[in-house]
């Protein structure tokens, strides 16, 4: 899932700036599960902002609402009649949520309250780690289900660099060496011979490097003359 973190309160206050009536929009999917932008976090942030602005002598009107998924039209459309009451919408969705709102409500100022961090998972309570970079060309079948694009600091495809030491990456002992993990896993599977083959330069055109990406599924598209 998408992992995000709330921006520091001071930054959020400065982003809100002069706006007097602010609607905080939480999201009930990924950012709820990672405790960054669900209804609970929206309520806490709303209270903090009300308190902080009151203490500064310019108490703002701040409300909260949380939608099931900020990244789909059907879940955000019901917000429309409500938005007229506000100068500013502070999204607690990921970057996709912020942009979905901004695209759907082009005359409203929509601003982010989160930093979208990565695609990953909670490895234990309170700890999230990156697992995927959405490169668009998966090679996990070659690397024992451990991704060197997301988890090796140099994105190496042909084994560890000289900086791998006791399972740790040279950039930080808290970062496991992805290639140590891959080697251990492939050895345990008896597939280490596969790691002897030279992997050619990767096709990065399916990744960010090829420009903004789009998938079109003609089998799922509605016909042009379709009416609801």
């Amino acid at each position, binding site marked *: 899932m998408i992992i995000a973190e709330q921006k520091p309160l001071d930054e959020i206050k400065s982003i809100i700036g002069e706006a007097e009536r602010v609607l905080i929009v939480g999201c009930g999917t990924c950012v709820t599960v990672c405790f960054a932008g669900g209804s609970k976090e929206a309520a806490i942030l709303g209270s903090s902002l009300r308190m902080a602005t009151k203490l500064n002598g310019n108490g703002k009107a701040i409300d909260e609402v949380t939608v099931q998924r900020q990244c789909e039209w059907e879940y955000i459309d019901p917000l429309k009649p409500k938005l007229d009451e506000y100068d500013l919408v502070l999204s607690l969705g990921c970057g996709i949520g912020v942009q979905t709102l901004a695209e759907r409500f082009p005359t409203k100022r929509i601003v982010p309250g989160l930093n979208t961090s990565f695609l990953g998972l909670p490895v234990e309570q309170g700890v999230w780690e990156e697992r995927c970079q959405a490169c668009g060309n998966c090679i996990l079948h070659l690397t024992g289900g451990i991704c060197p694009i997301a988890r090796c600091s140099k994105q190496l495809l042909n084994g560890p660099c000289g900086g791998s030491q006791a399972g740790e990456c040279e950039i930080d002992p808290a970062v496991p060496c992805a290639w140590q993990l891959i080697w251990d896993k492939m050895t345990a599977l008896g597939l280490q011979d596969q790691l002897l083959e030279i992997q050619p*330069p*990767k*096709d*990065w*055109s399916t*990744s960010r*490097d*090829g*420009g903004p990406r789009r998938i079109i599924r003609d089998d799922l598209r509605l016909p042009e003359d379709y009416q609801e």
Partner: protein
Amino acid sequence: MTNFSTNGYKSGSNLEKMIRAGHFVVTGELGPPKGWQRSVIEEKGQLLIGNVDAVNLTDNQTAIVRMSSIAAGRILVEMGLEPIIQMTCRDRNRLGIQADLLGAAALGMRNVLCLSGDHQVFGNHPTAKNVHDVDSVQLVQMVARMRDENQFQCGDEIIGGGPPLFVGAAANPFGDPFEYRPYRLAKKVAAGANFIQTQLIYDIPRFKEYMKKVVDMGLHEKTAILAGIGPLKSSGAARYMRDKVPGMIVDDYYVDEMLKVIEGIPKEEKAARQKAWRQRGIELCIEQIQQIQEIEGVAGVHIMAIEWEEAVKPIVEGAGLLPRPTVNGQNGT
């Protein structure tokens, strides 16, 4: 401040001196080969010597791998022809760029043109990763700071003084959003661009409109704007640029003129058609220079005659810009 003596100039390059002296500047362009033959650079360089004040060396232009612009630039330095090194943000991060620019300065190069770089999908390695660690505006600022404040981008001191580089940037007066273009130029100027080379101009009225805004903003007093021109090779090339190249506007006039000139010459007579086209291409280019010289705020022209370097001399000569003036007893060649 650099410790290297540049006699009050930022870089001491011929391009800078010519601009400072108020001469109408002429720069050319040379595309390094898809190989390592030094002779290719030398032969093209010979066609430009004495006809231009400095020569751009493209950096993997259109994202096709070629000899390094800095290595090719050194060959020009040895020939006595002043290079303008093109540096794109596509292939190097800020470490690589700064390292290469220090090397370029050590090898005698004094001008750098800072560019984003064509996207690699257009080139011969479309599956490559691109870098874009810094963008072209940030690159201009980084190089100007290296020179003026002896500082790397991180703030560390450059040992022995900053590299004396005259910093250039590109501008496309024809891209969209049209209204934003002069402001983007202003950003490059604020970042420290000493000179600007524009995209190819085949729409003089639109360029005039752009320059009017640029002059109103006073940008022409802070940077030297060199208008980009290039001789058309054929009516097909003109049509292709008009219809297919993003961010380019080609006035129908040029397509029509290039068609008119081959009227009556049968298709089979390829050599005759080519001769007619090329002559007209050169004439139109001269006409463009004359029109551009009348536009307020333009400091010179940048002639892009890639793979047709022979055309540069007749163009510059035809425009009455030969011999090239000298400053302090030196010229670009």
